[in-house]
């Protein structure tokens, strides 16, 4: 989707009809459209005009979302007359150009009161011949079509308030971020396909088999159906626990934020955060120590009890030497050469039947010992090496015991300190609110641990259930049937199983490809932008992670700043858009990937100068179309310098106010333009002017 133009009619600050065209990347180096606007000029309104036009909703932080009609238009209209607020958007897609118009008609009932009367949604497509044709025959279908272009769950990735974009990097957002990434990058269609085949479709066909098959087949199909039902119950249960876990995490995080805001608890909450970071690091160190020990165990652990066999081998070798069995007196090749030459080195002829020939044969039998000697020689050398490895293993084992003792002792101490801090946080001396908060926190933490345990149980049950289902499916495949229709259903079930397996494999491949691409892109941007020695990465479930090296171990950064999270989040959405573009094309008979715009309201708001410059430099490289809504203070030299070579269109949201002496100018590329205008017109309004 590429935004082409926008037209507004009486939408919030935008009185009457106004329009603008976006930079569409015809010149690929100029993909940025900038709107400069004073506070209250309508930057956020413009962003919401796009969202409302497409989905009939507004962003969560948009004030008074029901009052979209321009106040001036309401004031001017006679009572009883109609007022229309409308937004029209033209956008390009691979299959043509679309024009969407959402309009709401209201009736004026009082000086400032209006009653909403109707809302309409129109959608047209211009095909390759240039003909404009209506799409679908009703609003519901048209909305469905727009949602197919860009599902409404995804719009927060493309139309967002930059000052709140860090929410993407927050712990409690990971579920929606994961779902968003999967939808945008076409993983969801594979996952859903597999799920629907494995559950609903398979179950229906298994039920059909019960009506048709032979007695044994019917019995197995019935058992399978029961297991499938049980599997769905387990999956629902797991889903519920996961939701609960997320809700509990959010509640816990809220309470901890409240505690941090209580001034006299500030030091204690800082100590708690520090101890938690220590606990987390300790946990990682324990894992590392176990990993090191397991590696040593799998390589040389069997040698721990090898002394007996090594010693008896040495004794056997020593005995053989003592008896003179080794070293062998003669090499087998030497005897073979004499037999082949039929002549001794002394010139004696050796032919079959002579006593010399018989003696040589007897020697050759004894030369077998020379092979043994070679083995013994290499075994003797190995005994030394095996003893060294055994000693290394014993050393590793002893070190592991010491490390674990020390780490477990640290853990005990950290937990004990943490318990003291938590008790202090709940001390009634800090006030009833503080005590209540801590009490609630403890309860929620207990619930969270219980929920985690429930999830593990569900995972175990699901795994057992899957194993049993797989066993029954194998059995169904092997069972013969005389009934033709039953045989057909069996073939259909087999095909479903194969396709579901393939979808599962494709999901794994796509997920890893997407994760790696996002991870690489974000690391690159972060390494370039960040001033701290933090490392940015993307986890398997698409969580954004900042970590740092502490004592040789990589540990998560706790308490990253809002600015840091914003840089991380902006690089994440930029990387998403880049990957979607890379994937763009036809695969498996469906359209995958795509081109998406990034519309960012105040994206540089709370960033330090260094970060502003880097974000302004990086984002236009990642996305094909950028729309930036900024105030003068956000469009500072470092941002302007980074972006000016990439601007394709530039506008001023010229604010007209009745207040005297409010005139302000804005200087853009060395030229002054009206920014705020004192007007004789009592109606406050904003006019979109192209620079």
């Amino acid at each position, binding site marked *: 989707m590429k935004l082409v133009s926008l037209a507004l009619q009486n939408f919030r600050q935008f009185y009457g009809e106004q329009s603008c065209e976006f930079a569409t990347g015809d010149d690929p180096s100029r993909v940025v459209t900038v709107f400069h606007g004073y506070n209250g000029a309508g930057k956020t309104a413009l962003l919401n005009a796009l969202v409302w036009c497409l989905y009939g909703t507004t962003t969560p932080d948009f004030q008074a979302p029901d009052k979209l009609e321009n106040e001036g238009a309401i004031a001017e209209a006679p009572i009883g007359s109609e007022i229309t607020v409308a937004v029209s958007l033209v956008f390009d897609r691979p299959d043509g150009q679309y024009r969407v118009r959402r309009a709401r008609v209201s009736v004026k009932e009082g000086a400032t009161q209006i009653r909403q009367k109707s809302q309409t949604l129109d959608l047209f497509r211009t095909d390759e011949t240039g003909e404009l044709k209506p799409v679908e025959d009703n609003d519901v279908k048209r909305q*469905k079509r727009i*949602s*197919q272009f860009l*599902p*409404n*769950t995804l719009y927060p990735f493309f139309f967002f308030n930059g000052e709140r974009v860090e929410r993407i990097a927050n712990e409690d957002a990971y579920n929606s971020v994961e779902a968003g990434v999967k*939808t945008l990058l*076409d993983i*969801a*269609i*594979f996952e*859903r*396909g597999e799920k*629907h*085949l494995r559950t*609903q*479709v398979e179950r*229906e*066909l298994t039920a059909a088999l019960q009506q048709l098959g032979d007695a044994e087949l019917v019995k197995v199909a019935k058992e399978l159906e029961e297991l499938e039902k049980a599997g769905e119950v387990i999956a629902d249960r797991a889903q519920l626990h996961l939701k609960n876990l997320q809700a509990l995490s959010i509640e816990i995080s809220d309470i901890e934020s409240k505690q941090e805001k209580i001034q006299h608890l500030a030091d204690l909450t800082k100590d708690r955060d520090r101890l938690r970071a220590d606990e987390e690091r300790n946990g990682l160190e324990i894992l590392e120590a176990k990993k090191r020990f397991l590696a040593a165990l799998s390589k040389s652990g069997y040698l721990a009890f090898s002394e007996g066999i090594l010693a008896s081998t040495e004794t056997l070798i020593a005995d053989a030497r003592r008896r003179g069995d080794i070293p062998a007196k003669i090499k087998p090749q030497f005897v073979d050469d004499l037999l082949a030459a039929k002549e001794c080195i002394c010139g004696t002829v050796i032919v079959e039947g002579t006593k010399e020939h018989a003696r040589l044969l007897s020697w050759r039998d004894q030369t077998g010992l020379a092979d043994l000697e070679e083995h013994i020689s290499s075994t003797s050398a190995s005994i030394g090496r095996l003893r060294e490895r055994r000693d290394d293993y014993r050393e590793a084992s002893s070190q592991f015991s010491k490390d674990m003792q020390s780490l477990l002792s640290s853990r005990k101490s950290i937990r004990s300190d943490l318990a003291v801090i938590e008790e202090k946080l709940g001390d009634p001396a800090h006030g009833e609110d503080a005590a209540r908060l801590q009490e609630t926190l403890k309860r929620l933490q207990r619930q969270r641990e219980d929920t985690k345990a429930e999830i593990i149980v569900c995972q175990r049950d699901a795994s057992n259930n899957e194993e049993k289902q797989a066993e029954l499916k194998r059995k169904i495949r092997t069972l013969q049937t005389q009934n033709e229709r039953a045989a*057909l259903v069996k*073939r*259909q079930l087999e*095909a*479903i199983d*194969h*396709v579901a397996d*393939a*979808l599962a*494999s*494709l999901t794994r*491949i796509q997920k890893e*490809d997407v994760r*790696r691409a996002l991870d*690489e892109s974000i690391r690159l941007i972060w390494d370039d932008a960040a001033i701290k020695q933090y490392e940015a990465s993307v986890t398997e479930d698409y969580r954004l992670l900042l970590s740092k090296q502490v004592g040789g171990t990589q540990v998560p950064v706790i308490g990253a700043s809002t600015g840091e999270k914003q840089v991380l989040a902006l690089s994440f959405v930029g990387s998403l858009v880049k990957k979607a573009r*890379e994937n763009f094309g036809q*695969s*498996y*008979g*469906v*359209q995958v990937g795509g081109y998406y715009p990034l519309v960012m309201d105040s994206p540089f708001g709370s960033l330090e100068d260094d970060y502003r410059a880097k974000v302004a430099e990086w984002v236009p490289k990642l996305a094909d179309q950028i729309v930036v809504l900024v105030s003068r203070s956000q469009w500072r030299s470092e941002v302007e310098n980074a972006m000016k070579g990439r601007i394709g269109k530039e506008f001023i949201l010229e604010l007209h106010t009745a207040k005297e002496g409010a005139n302000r100018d804005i200087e853009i590329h060395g030229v002054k333009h009206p920014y705020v205008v004192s007007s004789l017109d009592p109606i406050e309004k904003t006019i979109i002017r192209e620079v």
Partner: protein
Amino acid sequence: MPTQSREQVAEQIRSVLLGLSEPERRLLNAVLKLEQENLYLDRPRVKDDIIAEVRRVIS
């Protein structure tokens, strides 16, 4: 971490698809098309459409 090229990913995908018979590949494409059309829905009802495709392709 070494970068896995698009060719490598394409090769992995190709290998999965080669493990399917021609009708199974057609079924896979049909399932993906249905899922994509209904992607915007939280709980899409695609069962009947998929079963119809199964019966059409494997008959």
